[in-house]
């Protein structure tokens, strides 16, 4: 269950989160005192107009950026004060990222891309290979392992990106417009895949989206406007 008033103690706990950018003498408050709790297994969609702070929030939750003030605690680890090296190790262990533009490495095959996060582990080559096969099978691309990104469709590229995101079995997935660059059919397939990951593997998903179809799959849709959470639609609670 998601709460936006900071009452709960879920997988992810956000307290008084602020992010301020300075451009010369101008100060832009992107996030303003945000409180949020997300439980294990929740699918949360963040919606809102451009510049509302959705991607900034996602970056802070994933440890890609540091807040101006406030805290983000994930599974008991407060990540806001971690050093760069510790934060990188934490990301590798706990977070799977899925981007709008897939962000696959073009010189690596599907298997090579999925193997990348595993290079940071102590797994042997054979073990890595096994994990890669499992992940690609899970996303339905076992027969495309040796294909390069340029040889895949957009939907298939995003499936490889999902396999890369889940191959280390992270605590939660962060998706930034995962269907933003796909046609309706491919977007539906990707959303089905994400939904099944949640259902079958208990993954927590936080997703930034403009796509109402994607938002429909979420347990909770949170609206951001000018750095403030203005509305929560807890479908799960309503049901």
């Amino acid at each position, binding site marked *: 269950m998601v709460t936006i008033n900071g009452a709960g103690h879920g997988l992810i706990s956000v307290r008084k989160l602020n992010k301020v950018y300075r451009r010369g003498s101008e100060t832009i408050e992107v996030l303003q005192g945000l409180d949020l709790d997300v439980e294990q297994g929740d699918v949360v969609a963040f919606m809102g107009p451009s510049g509302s702070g959705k991607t900034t929030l996602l970056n802070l939750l994933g440890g890609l950026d540091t807040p101006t003030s406030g805290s983000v605690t994930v599974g008991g680890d407060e990540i806001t004060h971690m050093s760069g090296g510790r934060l990188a190790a934490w990301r590798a262990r706990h977070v799977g990222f899925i981007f709008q533009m897939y962000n696959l490495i073009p010189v690596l095959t599907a298997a090579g891309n999925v193997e990348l996060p595993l*290079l940071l582990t102590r797994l042997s080559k054979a073990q890595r290979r096994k994990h890669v096969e499992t992940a690609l099978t899970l996303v339905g691309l076992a027969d495309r392992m040796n294909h390069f990104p340029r040889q895949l469709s957009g939907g298939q590229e995003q499936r490889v990106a999902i396999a890369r995101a889940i191959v280390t079995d992270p605590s939660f997935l962060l998706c930034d417009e995962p269907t933003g660059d796909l046609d309706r059919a491919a977007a539906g397939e990707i959303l089905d895949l994400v939904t099944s990951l949640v259902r079958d593997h208990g993954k927590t998903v936080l997703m930034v989206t403009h796509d109402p179809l994607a938002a429909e799959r979420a347990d909770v849709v949170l609206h951001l406007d000018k750095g403030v959470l203005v509305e929560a639609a807890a479908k799960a609670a309503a049901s």
Partner: protein
Amino acid sequence: MKFLPFVLRNLFRKKTRTLLTVGSIAVALFLFGLLVTIETSLNAGIDVAGADRLVIRNRTSLIMPLPLAYQERLRQMPHITDATFATWFGGVYQDERNFFPQFAVDTETYRQMFPEFEIPDQQWRDFLSDQEGAVVGRVTADRFGWKIGDRVPIQGTIWPGTWEFNIRAIYDGARTGDDESLFWFHWKYLEERRPFGKGTVGWYTVKVDDPDNAVVVARKVDESFANSAWETSTETEKAFAAGFAKQIGNIRFLILSIGAVVLFTLLLVTGNTMAMTVRERVPELGVLKTLGFTDATVLVLVLVESLLIACVGGVLGLALAKLFTLGGDPTGGMLPTFYLAPSEMLLGFAIAVTVGLVAGSVPALTAMRLRIVDALRRV
């Protein structure tokens, strides 16, 4: 090692650019190999010069002679254990391009003064018994296909006429770098036939009992012959060889200058390649960091890429240079010890590694400092 396939994939992302960069490093290191070989060859005499030998020449100039009578006076001096002499002949064999140094030597003392030149005893005895006999170094003998017993005509340039010699011995240098291009013959043969300069020699070489006494002996020799008609200038064999090499200009400076320019250009070329590589890959570097690659890992990945380019180019260039030098002296006698030593190849490789590290350092630091959110924004 597990990152190596990834690094290699990245290297061949832009095949043409990588190959051109590797090629330019290979050409530069090939050039380095040749320049070092030439420099070493020109200074070969310096490197192998005996520490216990002094060379005494006319103080006015090397081309001015000294009297034969000095030999006995030198032998009498304290700390000098032996004294021999030689005279530059400067003849031409068939063609001026067939240059090799010819000396008329004191046959009674020359061999024991220079034991590094190894001559079979029987051949040496044959040489001693034939006044028109000659001893030739292995390189020159092979170059002209001379064998023991061959009769060789040499056209005199200082002392005119055709001088005929019988090849009686072929010597080998005991050490790498020993000059195997020399041609010695009897000073008495020269003395009997030459129309002028009789009773003189080109220079003396003396052996001292202890290299520590070399400076004292050199000063004593020059003091002994001061204010005479034939004043002397005495120096160690090493200094003499260095002075001889300098007669054809400051080759070392020239080579260092060319080498420095080439290496600087190389730094720019490799640095530019690596900078372009990192610039093009900013979003991918952001993705790697997102996946958990640390700043240090990203730094090392870029540096390894740069190092690989430099090392492959370096090894290729040095191997080509080695192959080239295996063909021997390409100048026809000016560079008798044309040889690229393993130590110089190691130096070349160290230079390639340094170029790789320096050229890759700025792009690698840029990659390391890249903020993930900025990098991802460039997708």
